[in-house]
């Protein structure tokens, strides 16, 4: 693997690691492991832990994918590996 591709792959893996960490925290963290603690906070009719488990985590999942898409498109251009350039 040449240096360019190795650097591209490294940046890709780093980005994905950060996003997967957030993915884990909102669902397994807020929605499952710390659900009882968060449930003591009530906002707008929802216990917070319950809200993350049944609503919030899904919204965050959607946002994470679109952040990934935008960042990867930028990275592709930066390294000149976008398909039709």
């Amino acid at each position, binding site marked *: 693997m040449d240096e360019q591709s190795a650097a591209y792959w490294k940046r890709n893996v780093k980005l994905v690691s950060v996003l997967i960490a957030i993915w884990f925290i909102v*669902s397994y963290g807020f929605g*499952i492991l710390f659900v009882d603690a968060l449930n003591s906070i009530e906002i707008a009719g929802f216990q917070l832990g319950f809200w993350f*488990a049944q609503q919030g985590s899904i919204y965050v*999942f959607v946002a994470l994918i679109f952040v990934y898409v935008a960042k*990867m498109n930028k990275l592709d251009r930066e390294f000149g590996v976008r*398909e039709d350039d």
Partner: protein
Amino acid sequence: MDLTTLTYIAVGLSFALYIGIAIWAKASTTGEFYVAGKGVNPVVNGMATAADWMSAASFISMAGLIAFLGYGGSVYLMGWTGGYCLLAMLLAPYLRKYGKFTVPEFIGDRYYSKAARIVAVICLIFISFTYVAGQMRGVGIVFSRFLEVEILTGLIVGMGIVFIYAVLGGMKGITYTQVAQYCVLIVAYTIPAIFIAFQLTGNPLPQLAFGSTVNGTGEFMLDRLNQVVTELGFLEYTTTSKSTIDIFAITLALMVGTAGLPHVIVRFFTVPKVRDARSSAGWALVFIALLYTTAPAVGAMARLNLTETIQTGEVGAEDGNLVFEERPDWMKRWEATGLLKFEDKNGDGRIQYYNDANAEFAAKAAEFGWQGNELSVDRDIMVLANPEIAQLPNWVIALVAAGGIAAALSTAAGLLLVISSGVSHDILKGTFTPNMTEGQELMAGRIAAAVAILIAGYLGYNPPGFVAQVVAFAFGLAASSLFPVIIMGIFSKKVNREGAIAGMLTGLVFTMGYILAYKGVFFDPIIANTPENWLFGISPEGIGAVGMVLNFIVAFAVSKVTAEPPEHIQVMIEDIRVPKGAGSAVDH
């Protein structure tokens, strides 16, 4: 117009639409048959993926499950959406770059092994048939309730429709019918939810109504629900009786299982570019989230509506319960199907609905003169009965029927296609008869699809007693066999043929063995399926998560002590990691 006529019109129009699309999108090459010629717009593919993914279980059963499980139902909500993040970031773009037709084909190429490909095909076929039986059952139920025909007639009609567009149109036909089916099912799902949310809270958006105050009380809906159900001896709605580790494991198994399901993965083979595969997963989740964020609201509102319909006054008061003769019409209609039952155990002519398994509350109930819970409600009717509960016009009920059928057919078609491509492309062309012409392979694919439809129809009509239990199988196997080898195939250059085969077999045997031991399936369970007996307190539903971890460990360990993958495989891995030059990997 009466309900039956309207339902015939709604279902008939939707069928005409699907057939029209099938004729317009007829597949003429294997590329079109397997992957729609790789020319599907990413947003369109997102919509098709959403319909492919959301099955009869999502449409008909999930909100009802959540209604009775409360917080415990969160495993389905997170588990069946979170996998799309894994798909978008860890699988879809690289598999699209790889650029061929099927998931077993990737596994076979990456691990330079026909044996690995065959193991993967066997997993794929087992997973997909398990799943498809449930879909055909769903079609039968909707037909028998709404069109008042025999389940068998319903099944034959459903099979005929799928036959026309899957066999003729292949992936191309399926893609565009799935788009139409998504539109039908999402409209059918959200309209009743919006009406009920508005009636109950004054807020038409179910996602917000869920946290709003109930009309005329000033109490938040979830607070009120917690109070109403605990007064009848049930568990608080926002809590669960499951252990944290089990909730964790089930959610993980469902998420990873989603990302490892072949009929979902293959949808990302159909878009033109690597970056389309990434964004397409995002669009798929947007369309899925529309239903998945509505479902928990529907569940909570249905539970509150049902409980307050029965418990009209104070718990324990002589006139606190619904008089049987005054029960609403929708209850009478569903009684006819046997899915809702009432038995007047204490002979007072009123319905008591409470948790008689709760010993403490049962003792209290006995003081009121209650002699046991008198109402049994099948969870599956909550969504289908919703428009009737909210007293919506008949056309909405007809639409819900068409929506339920759309959800079941779209998933069934996607599953049948991966079964047929597994047979024609991986087993025949890839292994036993490599000299087939393209025309012969296309014909083999069509015949395999037709045979698969017949088997699926049979399984739908005579569901083996274990259909409900084997759903755990489908996700557990996808999570413990396919997902890890695909991920390792992309992210590690070290994992080799021996490692992958050993890993897949370990995950497969462990997960299957565990589920069989506790659930039986073909025989009586060997060990009683109770939390005290479970390994680490993890139920068979969640054991796929452990199987996945074992698969990773074994694959890495075996790869460490055997020869590294050959040079051309390392080049192939480097190639799929970079978007530019899509398709070049094919030449290796």
